[in-house]
């Protein structure tokens, strides 16, 4: 069990003592050995947009997932082979022809619903259900009361010793368009799943990611030993740790001060280990072009066009993965890639589905597919980097400004963990629920079928990355982050709660929240 009942204070005291007692041993220095192992390295990549509001006709194929395949959570679920919509020459208007070469490696999923009936679910996309942006006091309070303060799954993986037996050059890359930074929730004390979460600052410039993955102080690509710059960095941190030790053993340092200093030392130690990480020589690894300047997402439009910017971004990320410097990359899209006036949020409110669709397709074609293409190269054993990865593309909202039937496209089989080439529909057809965010205005009322809980994608992703439930389960918490149903007051007319019965449309599938996605996981 990963659940650890130790208090944060105990953790700090313990780790600090360990720091003070043990020297840094050269023999413990991490080594990347991915090319030497028989089990392929698995990687997790997610690209998503916040706050959608789609026309379902833009999102899904012109054909339906129409083969009733199984009875699941007391309702029939459907499946079909993923193929092109004949009239479009592509899967759909949004899932455009850029995906055509990869059909066999994709899954299109309909009917994954967030258990929180809420319209700003950016953080829930990667599995953090406790802190959501804005919102009213009722549901905000319910989230605080009913959901644990967990890291998003990318950050949980980033500090999992099973996923990263050795500390990588960088645990994760957290890209963003700049519109919204939400989604990646780190742990206050990395490695301590009970320490509480903190919103991570995104990587806003490709140059910074490049420096972290390939710049001074990182392992040389042609040698398995630490570079001179790395050794200098190691020395520097040793010197800084020396200052800490001197202060700690000096005058006027209370017990509480020592806890604080020990925590500081622990973080410095981890930083040091990152700085001296070395790399085996990997066949498909080649250093990307060094960015020529420090352009950030804010420069898009003025000093750099969007396509060039994201090409740089994705090239560095793909190289980082192929060179074994990281195994996690997440990327949010948004304002910088929109086509009209306003933004994703306002379009979601206003029902401007064309603008949302164009932005979603642009992100697919300029961020997700380039990453996919750059990773679909041989990694050995007849598999590509893509095959050994799980890539997810989606939006935290769907055809309404809310998180039901969230659009999810996956790519890669995570080293054979997942079946691919499928279009699955988990919705409980015939049970219409009125869920319009706005009952008035120019955004028409929508009715939707309830599906199964989004948590099942989270646990599938975690297990696809090699974890088991024992690694992430917490007592009484299902589906990694929990699956308590929260929704609008049924009298609002926009709730998943049936006004007459008081029963939520997802009540019947709560018990399955911790299970793997049906139909998609290999036996």
């Amino acid at each position, binding site marked *: 069990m990963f659940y650890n009942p130790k208090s944060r204070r105990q953790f700090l005291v313990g780790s600090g003592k360990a720091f003070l007692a043990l020297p840094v041993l050269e023999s413990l220095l991490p080594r990347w050995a991915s090319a030497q192992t028989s089990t392929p390295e698995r990687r997790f990549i997610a690209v998503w947009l916040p706050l959608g509001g789609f026309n379902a006709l833009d999102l899904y194929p012109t054909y339906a997932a129409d083969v009733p395949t199984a009875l699941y959570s007391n309702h029939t679920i459907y499946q079909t082979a993923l193929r092109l919509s004949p009239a479009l020459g592509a899967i759909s208007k949004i899932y455009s022809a850029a995906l055509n070469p990869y059909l066999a490696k994709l899954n299109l999923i309909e009917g994954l619903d967030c258990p929180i009936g809420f319209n700003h679910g950016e953080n829930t996309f990667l599995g953090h259900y*406790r*802190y*959501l942006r*804005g919102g*009213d*006091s*009722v549901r*905000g*309070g*319910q*989230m*605080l*009361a*009913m959901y644990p303060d967990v890291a998003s799954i990318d950050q949980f993986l980033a500090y999992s010793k099973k996923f990263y037996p050795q500390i990588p050059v960088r645990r994760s890359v957290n890209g963003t368009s700049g519109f919204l930074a*939400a989604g990646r929730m*780190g742990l*206050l004390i990395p490695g301590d799943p009970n320490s509480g*979460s*903190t*919103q*991570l*600052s995104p*990587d*806003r410039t490709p140059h*910074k990611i490049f420096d972290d993955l390939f710049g001074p102080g990182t392992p040389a690509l042609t040698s398995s030993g630490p570079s*001179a710059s790395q050794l*200098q960095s190691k*020395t*520097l*941190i040793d*010197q*800084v740790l*020396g*200052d800490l030790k001197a*202060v700690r053993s000096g*005058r*006027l*340092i*209370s*017990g*509480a*001060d020592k806890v*604080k*200093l020990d*925590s*500081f030392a622990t*973080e*410095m130690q*981890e*930083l040091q280990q*990152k700085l001296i990480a070395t790399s085996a020589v990997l066949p498909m690894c080649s250093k990307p072009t060094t960015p020529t300047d*420090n352009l950030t997402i804010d420069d898009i439009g003025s000093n750099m066009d969007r396509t060039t910017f994201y090409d740089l971004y994705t090239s560095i990320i793909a190289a980082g993965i192929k060179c074994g410097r990281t195994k996690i990359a997440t990327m949010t899209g948004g304002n910088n890639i929109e086509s009209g006036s306003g933004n994703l949020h306002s379009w979601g409110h206003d029902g401007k589905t064309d603008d949302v669709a164009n932005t979603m397709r642009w992100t697919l074609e300029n961020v997700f597919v380039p990453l996919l293409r750059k990773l679909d190269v041989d990694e050995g054993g007849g598999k590509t980097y893509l095959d050994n990865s799980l890539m997810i593309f989606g939006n935290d909202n769907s055809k309404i400004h809310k998180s039901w039937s969230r659009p999810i496209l996956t790519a890669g089989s995570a080293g054979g963990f997942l079946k691919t080439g499928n279009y699955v529909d988990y919705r409980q057809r015939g049970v219409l629920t009125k869920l319009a965010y*706005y*009952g*008035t*205005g120019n955004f028409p009322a929508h009715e939707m079928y309830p599906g199964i809980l989004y948590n099942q994608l989270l646990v599938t992703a975690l297990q696809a990355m090699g974890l088991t439930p024992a690694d992430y389960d917490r007592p009484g918490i299902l589906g990694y982050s929990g699956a308590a149903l929260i929704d609008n*007051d049924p*009298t*609002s*007319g926009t709730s998943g709660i049936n006004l007459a019965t008081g029963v939520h449309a997802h009540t019947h599938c709560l018990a399955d929240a911790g299970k793997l996605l049906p139909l998609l996981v290999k036996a």
Partner: protein
Amino acid sequence: MKRFMLNLQILTALTLLVLPFQNCAPYRAKVMQENDQSSVQSRASFQCDSNAAPSENTQRRLNKVEYRNTLVALLKGLSAADVSAITASLTEPLSSIPEDIGVKFDRSDSQISQPHVVGYLYVAQSYAKLLTTSLPRAQAFFGACATQTNMDDTCLTRFLTDKAARIYRRPLTSAEVATLKADYASYSVDDRNYWLLTRMLMSVNFLLHLENKGSLIAVEVYAISPYELANRLSYYLLQTMPDQELYAAAADGTLQTEIGFQRQLVRLTSGTFAPKIQSLAGEFYSAWLGFDQVPYPGANPTAAYMAMAAGESLSRESMVREIKNLTDYYTFQTSGTVDDLLTSDISFAQDRDLAGIYKVAPWNGDPTNLIKFPKGERTGLLTRAAFLATPSAQTNPVMRGVTIRRNILCDEIPPPPDSVMQQLRTPDLDRSMTTRERYAAKTGSAFCMSCHSQINPVGFALEGFDSLGRYRTTEKIFDSDGTLLNSLSVNTSVQPNITTADSTNSSDAEHFNILVAESGKVQACMVKQYFQFTFAREPDLAADGCTLQNMLDDVAGPSGSLKKLFTNAPQSKNFRLRHVH
């Protein structure tokens, strides 16, 4: 970015919309007792034991604002163009450091996480690189004797006794000088200056407010050193390192004399520093009064909301701006008091939308041209739209009550039990009942009232204002389609029990505000909050009683004023002491 997380923590308090079930009772005795103590203390002053040691405080890191300001201050001596260019180039590295989120005040966040140290290294390397990429910059920073990459021993010694002391904000010990010289020698000759500066900026001596040089004056109590005092003073008032004059006063010992200390305090709170004090006050008011909790009216414009608004709109920015104007006026443009805040009949609405809500002309910002509210409609801080508005068609008296109890009166309101939390519902609409009546009915059981007896009256007293903050004498009831179902008279008479000992009734919001002001609880609450803001720890009523009382005298004494609270806090004896356990 991270602010919304804190908002939601605060919103826990606001989730007491309805407590339809039991579980309040176990809290009642404790809550009433604690809130009673608070009120008694506020009226009868805090207990001051001059022999009590201050409560313990731990070493803290520089918060993000302090960290940035200090890096910029260290550039003194470089050309204005270089300072500007380096400052601009640091924007990106600085963005990699997590934003501060304190329990109540962000400036007190002392968490150090991996993203912090990674960010510190990124900033330190960027900073060092920027200062070693040209000879003029390197010489301006390291000394005229330096090259871009190196210093000889004499030059290094001079740097370590001069500039390095500014980086550590105190003179280095001989042992530290020796260590840094040895470290310097270990670096590649190609870039020793770069590595030395990076190393110093990563040191605990730079990153933390280290206070470990004081003198023992009583058991576990130390008078902080002159340099530590200079740092406390400067970071508290200005959020940056001591300037040259303050540093010199620490060096020559005059800062430890009463005259010298007072001279520095006056200097740092007036003249060119005055705007900094306004900024300090603004930061405090924003956190204390919860500017970030002010809602976005119309965020969910249902048909009922649109019908209620009747064409009027209101922006969050307008409401926040008014509170800023109000607090700024009574703190800095006149010698205002807390009572003034609580009873002012002047509109500070500069934006047309809010002025429209108040039915007054927009204020042009001229303190000699103040605009009063229509007589008999509203007075005081608590009747401003920022405290009244909700994003829905109906008011939420429970939310209003909880906000005021917790934020303004510092009352302990326990969170609802989980069983209640999971079943929160607004009371069902009923065309024959006002909002007050619906909430009263839903929370009417004896058990619920063990908590709601404190919450509801405060909210009910403000039912003379709709969910846009407009004054009203009748409440319009709309159904979900926006159809007007009924108009009912509102009742604002309550027995608010601001203190448990006070059973006075109030008839309307104006009378209610007077009771709030007279209770003294707001003054006491403000002082306790300000203590936490100043000292980055919650006050211990026994250990910190004298400091709290001094602050209370500053803000609520016979010659007290709001401004004094901000400028006089360093006068406290405890400001110069540290308790080490």
